[in-house]
């Protein structure tokens, strides 16, 4: 069996309720970290991702991980600056960041609730992206959107080029094409770039009914964007979970949890899994997580590994929790000891993938020798002697029922029937393509509001 086949088998075992041969290692590094390894200027690299290719290759040679070592970057200046973004900005030190921004004012909730997608185009995007002033300077807005898409495509081409080359050479695992997607939980979506973190914190107390109505209104849109093209045991829709740990439980239960839980259950009824990054410390919410569909992948940042494993380890695939700070605060021997200690807690019964509590942001967040030692310890120590045995509970999509939430509709979304009226000569065989093009605009808008 080649290393690539072994990796494929490891993840497949994890996702099909078997104990794998060894613990899979999910460690990758962003471009910002890789730039630091070679002393490259972060700003140059963000504008020309190809600069990191040699460094990626060197790190792939040195670090043992089962997924692609090259993690790309979540934000690029070529796109955001073409649009004069306020929600994705480069710092003086060359790191793309997301400041606290308000896309929707507190007195505009009703407009959002009535037609979220139209409100995004008409109100939110022009407010967050200074070049998207459709009303006063539509020509410039058109140029900006075109340039941003062009820039995005160029960056994507470079990133995928590096990624594919390294994956082929080192035999990394990846889930089947089309089986992955990503979105926020509905209330996180209306928080992050729409009402802002601080705006939502006051809305929860001042206008909870509007918050609940907005989360409901955006659900059909959120559902469509977060739904992978194909359902597959190894695929998942990824949700980074933002707000809950900053909320009181009663607000969480009433405002945040219902739409998230519904979306995850709706997907489960279609055989689609969810991968959730429980940001910050979710220990007070473990009972809620317990209600999620079997085999939901839960990545934790802080928390007690023993309790999490004990309460959730049989039903869910657990990852994260290993403190990244170990790499910079411990000696190599201490790192190895702590890794073994951690594996002793997390390995029994399977359903566990090794990963850090958070991704390193810059090269100084890791000590490379220690990172290498940790990964090799997981590879060599994280071996099961009962590989192939059943692991925990099994997922069956028939156990879940799809909700009757409304289907997505908007005054800004052209349906096939409307299209056909405008272009009657279009054959029915063109329908998937026409609908795909219209739907891509949803993803486009969503990506601008991440």
């Amino acid at each position, binding site marked *: 069996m080649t290393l690539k086949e072994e990796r494929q088998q490891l993840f497949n075992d994890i996702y099909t309720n078997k104990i794998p041969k060894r613990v899979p290692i999910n460690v990758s590094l962003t471009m910002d970290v890789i730039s630091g390894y070679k002393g490259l200027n972060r700003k140059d690299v963000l504008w020309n991702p190809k600069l990191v290719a040699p460094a990626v290759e060197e790190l792939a040679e040195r670090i043992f991980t089962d997924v692609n070592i090259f993690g790309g970057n979540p934000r690029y200046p070529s796109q955001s600056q073409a649009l004069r973004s306020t929600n994705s900005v480069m710092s003086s030190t060359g790191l793309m960041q997301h400041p606290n921004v308000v896309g929707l004012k507190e007195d505009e909730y009703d407009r959002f609730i009535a037609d979220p997608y139209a409100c995004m185009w008409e109100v939110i995007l022009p407010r967050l992206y200074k070049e998207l002033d459709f009303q006063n300077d539509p020509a410039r807005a058109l140029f900006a959107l075109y340039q941003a898409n062009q820039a995005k495509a160029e960056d994507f081409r470079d990133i995928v080029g590096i990624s594919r080359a390294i994956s082929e050479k080192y035999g990394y695992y990846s889930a089947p094409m089309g089986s992955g997607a990503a979105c926020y939980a509905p209330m996180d979506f209306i928080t992050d770039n729409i009402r802002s973190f601080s705006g939502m914190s006051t809305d929860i107390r001042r206008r909870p009914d509007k918050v609940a109505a907005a989360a409901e209104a955006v659900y059909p849109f959120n559902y469509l964007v977060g739904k992978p093209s194909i359902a597959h045991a190894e695929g998942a829709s990824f949700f980074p979970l933002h707000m809950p740990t900053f909320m009181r439980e009663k607000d969480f239960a009433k405002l945040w949890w219902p739409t998230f839980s519904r979306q995850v259950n709706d997907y489960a009824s279609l055989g689609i899994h969810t991968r959730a990054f429980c940001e910050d410390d979710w220990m007070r919410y473990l009972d809620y997580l317990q209600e999620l569909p079997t085999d939901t992948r839960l990545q934790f940042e802080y928390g007690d590994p023993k309790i999490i494993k004990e309460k959730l380890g049989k039903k869910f695939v657990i990852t994260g929790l290993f403190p990244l700070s170990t790499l910079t605060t411990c000696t190599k021997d201490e790192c190895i000891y702590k890794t073994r200690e951690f594996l002793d807690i997390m390995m029994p019964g399977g359903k566990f993938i090794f990963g850090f509590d958070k991704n390193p942001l810059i090269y100084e*967040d890791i000590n490379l020798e220690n990172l290498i030692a940790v990964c090799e310890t997981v590879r060599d120590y994280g071996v099961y002697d009962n590989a192939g045995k059943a692991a925990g509970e099994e997922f069956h999509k028939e156990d879940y029922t799809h909700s009757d939430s409304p289907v997505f509709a908007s005054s800004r979304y052209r349906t096939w029937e409307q299209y056909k009226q405008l272009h009657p000569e279009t054959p029915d065989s063109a329908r998937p393509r026409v609908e795909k093009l219209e739907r891509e605009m949803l993803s486009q808008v969503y990506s601008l509001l991440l």
Partner: protein
Amino acid sequence: MDFNELKQAVGDLDEEVVLDILNKVMEDGGSEAKDALEACQRGLDIVGDMFDKGEYFVGDLIFAGELMTQAVDILKPALAGTTTESVGKVILCTVEGDLHDIGKNIVRSILEANGIEVIDLGIDTPPQKIVDTMIAEDIHVVLLSGVLTLALDSMKKTVDAITAAGLRETTKILIGGNPVSEEAMKLTGADAWAHNPQHTNQACLDWLKK
């Protein structure tokens, strides 16, 4: 006027009751505005305690900051010209390389409600700008905020710049935000650290009153 009720309402983050009492305080032009402000400040102590106990969370602190900004705005016309003086001036900023300002803004609201004058230098603040402002404004308390792990490095650079300018011995420096800890305080060379804005407030009051 029942200022205990006001204190408790601030502690409970009960906006309706707080605003109702404050508006009543202002009905006679605000003869008891100073007492009302003090009650609000004591209410913030309750908020800080609840945060320490894990009964309030960051979202509640944001709301507390918002509530105090409103309270000060209501009382301000009556406070002007009274004996309520500024306790002193501090510099507050998010350090170089970091664009996050939610925590900084909460701290600003809480400090201002406690009579502290805040020179807010914003986000991504270069060390030299902080040093220049310290000299120009004669400020000896500096509050450095950050969310990213790299903020610790910038905090250290800022402390070093203050030392290099010969100002360290007469300056108190507090670091705040997600990555700070006792260990980070030692690493950066700061004098104190805080996750709870009430602790930041208390440190500032202690330093400024000395």
